[in-house]
């Protein structure tokens, strides 16, 4: 049997006394957790999908309108100019930006709320993992990976939805002539941005709940809710 007496020896042996959780294994566990809690994940995702789709909607609208303005011979241009600044560049319209900001904020608050509940439900699991040798940062990492995956999925759905709605609405408004002036690379780029933003919001939303969970002592985590 290994003896582990003495400070010196302990320090010496510390490298051999590591506990680890390989990154791929964390991803595997995170995916399992998401799949096992599909409904909860779905609710967490929903607010994200809505907020990101609104964001995408606004930014794609802007791209489309700019495309229209830049082409001289587009039939709807006069009407747009009449409607004024806000219609020309929705992303820079203060009212529009304020609504956008609020919707993203509500989204983060919603995520924090559902994640806090989700973490509470998982106290026992977290405590058990700690008893098996998990470090605080393993727990933190699991939650962050879960949030990132959820962020990618939710934001992708949101970006698609927002872009689609914006395209349909604009086509209804200006006619299929619109497709001639659309800058597809810009739209693709805006979707990438939307997905990045979605991941960020998702991770921000889980940060506090995950920290609470990770710092918990095993006994605290396993006591209480039976």
């Amino acid at each position: 049997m290994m003896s582990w007496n003495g400070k010196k020896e302990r320090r010496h042996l510390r490298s051999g006394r590591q506990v680890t959780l390989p990154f791929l294994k964390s991803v595997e566990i995170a995916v399992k957790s998401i799949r096992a809690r599909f409904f909860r994940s779905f609710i967490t995702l929903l607010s994200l999908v809505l907020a990101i789709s609104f964001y995408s909607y606004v930014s794609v609208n802007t791209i489309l309108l700019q495309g229209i303005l830049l082409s001289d011979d587009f039939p709807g241009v006069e009407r747009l100019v009449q409607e004024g600044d806000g219609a020309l560049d929705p992303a820079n319209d203060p009212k529009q930006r304020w609504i956008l900001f609020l919707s993203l904020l509500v989204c983060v608050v919603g995520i924090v709320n559902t994640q806090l509940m989700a973490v509470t439900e998982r106290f026992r699991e977290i405590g058990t993992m700690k008893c098996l040798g998990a470090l605080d940062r393993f727990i933190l990492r699991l939650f962050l990976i879960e949030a990132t995956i959820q962020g990618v999925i939710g934001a992708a759905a949101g970006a698609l939805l927002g872009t689609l709605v914006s395209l349909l609405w604009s086509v209804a408004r200006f006619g299929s002539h619109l497709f001639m002036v659309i800058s597809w690379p810009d739209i693709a780029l805006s979707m990438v941005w939307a997905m990045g933003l979605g991941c960020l919001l998702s991770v921000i939303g889980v940060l506090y709940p995950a920290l609470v969970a990770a710092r918990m002592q095993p006994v605290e985590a396993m006591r209480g809710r039976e």
Partner: protein
Amino acid sequence: MEGTSRIVRVVEVKKDFPMGKGVIRVLKGIDLSILAGEYISIMGPSGSGKSTLFNMIGGLDKPSSGAVYIDEVDIAQLDAYELAWLRCRKIGYIFQTFNIIQVMTALENVTLPMVFAGVSPMDATKKGMELLDMVGLKERFNHKPSELSGGQQQRVAVARALANDPSIILADEPTGNLDVTTGGEIIDLLKMLSIEKRVTVISATHDFKMLNVSDRVVWVEDGRIDRIENRDELSISMGEIGER
């Protein structure tokens, strides 16, 4: 048991919990030495402080005063990494409520401590299957906890506790949520381990069937050790219980 080392030493351990404005004194000074390879039962009525003592010995909670030594190392002195290492490699925990991770299969539950210990996936799977075979659940390796009975879940927990060949198995009311037969099977399993694998088994319980297999029984009453009995002395109190 001469020549065997003291694997656990509990010295003057007291534990208070804050309660409103005051404190509730749960452990009122516990002294206990446990030898490597022993099968120890901590017996006592509900609320006497068994689980609290269990948490102290397992490094899951810190005493208010006093110290717990494992292999003569004061575990209060360990940093977070060393403590995690201790929980991962040195001690296997078994709980009344099984605490199998719900989203993982039986095999994944058993291999998780080996993942933390840095064992390669292939070796972990091999060892995990051996352990599941040992507890009689080889065919069920791919089952989720929800598809297993209480007794089967507790078997998975036993297999998981053994994953990294710990020198100590700590079991808090391992039979508390099981019927008599299944509980008996878990007790037999623990006894078999203590004999074959030479692990030290420390189990908090008020299941009198534990008495038959214990080398020593520590009777706890109201946060103190009432008495410690060796196996040969046990027949007397067993008789008493039989009469009741």
